[in-house]
């Protein structure tokens, strides 16, 4: 029962994202036979070292979506970023379940709630690429490089962007 609510909601979001797609974002289910598994493409924000890149990510939705948030993981090559784990998993507040935050650095309003959406997640990830959050590094090495050796960080990101496009 709960999963049919989730499916309907996901289908609705899929339709909205297709008919009125935000700039630089394409997202939808890998196949409509499984609405709980999506793939998204995000364009690297302009004016950042990610500019020009297209990043693929998979989204996995729980059966009780939208009560619980999906998980998001970049696929096909790493995204060198303080808030992305080396395995590609994205770590930002909108993907964190509601409730008390043990670390007390996120506001409840930033975290997941059923009024959020896939679109908001993807837009948040886009702005995360532009502005890393230094408070909760998922990739400690990348965070350190971003903080201390910015030029090296930016070069590494640009190289990976090219590699990601097969160039």
């Amino acid at each position, binding site marked *: 029962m709960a999963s049919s609510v989730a499916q309907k909601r996901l289908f609705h979001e899929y339709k909205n994202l*297709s*008919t009125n*797609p935000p700039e630089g974002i*394409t997202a*939808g289910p890998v196949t409509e036979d499984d609405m709980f598994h999506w793939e998204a*493409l995000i*364009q690297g924000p302009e004016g950042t070292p990610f500019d020009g890149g*297209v990043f693929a990510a998979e989204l996995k939705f729980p059966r009780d979506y939208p009560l619980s948030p999906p998980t998001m993981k970049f696929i096909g090559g790493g995204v060198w970023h303080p808030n992305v784990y080396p395995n590609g998993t994205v770590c930002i507040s909108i993907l964190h379940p509601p409730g008390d935050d043990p670390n007390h650095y996120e506001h409840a309003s930033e975290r997941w709630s059923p009024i959020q959406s896939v679109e908001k997640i993807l837009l948040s990830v886009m702005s995360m690429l532009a502005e890393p959050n230094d408070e909760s590094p998922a990739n400690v090495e990348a965070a350190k490089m971003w903080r201390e050796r910015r030029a090296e960080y930016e070069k590494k990101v640009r190289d990976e962007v090219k590699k990601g496009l097969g160039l």
Partner: protein
Amino acid sequence: MTEEEHSLNIPSLLTLAVVSYFVLRWFFKRDDGSAGGGRGRGRGNAVDPAQVEQIAQMFPQLSTRDIMWDLQRNGGVLQRRQRGSSQGVDWKLYVFADADKNPPPSFQPPVAIPSTNTPPTQTTTAAPALKADGQDLISRGTPSKTTWSQNKEERQQLLQKRRDDMILAARRKMMQKNQGDAQ
């Protein structure tokens, strides 16, 4: 009754008008032939009303005047389409990006052709296939317009196409940028 008469008479009217147009044209052209003969024109470029109709069905966004101009001047999109595809060119872009497509204001179509929204009845044999083909070509030519379908398989294809387009565009842009940097 009047409608039936009207639609029956169009082809003969058209043929007559087209033929007389070319006779007159040829007649006047002969006089200043030595002056303006630089732009060679094939003999097979006479405007065939059936062809105008065909093209109008494939490209509903083109006006009859544009089609006639194109047929007369270039031998028509159908021929250019074949040329384009044999060269491995995306002929849709080829046709629509052609700056010469628009006739000059001075161009007078040989005849006034009725609105293509009500195609005459004779073309029914060829029309359905052409129309389906044309619509498909048009939707493929403007990917950003159609992003949703009532059909599951079509939706899947549209999504895949948007993904492919996004990656291709990024790749093309990056290659251009790299070339620019190298120079």
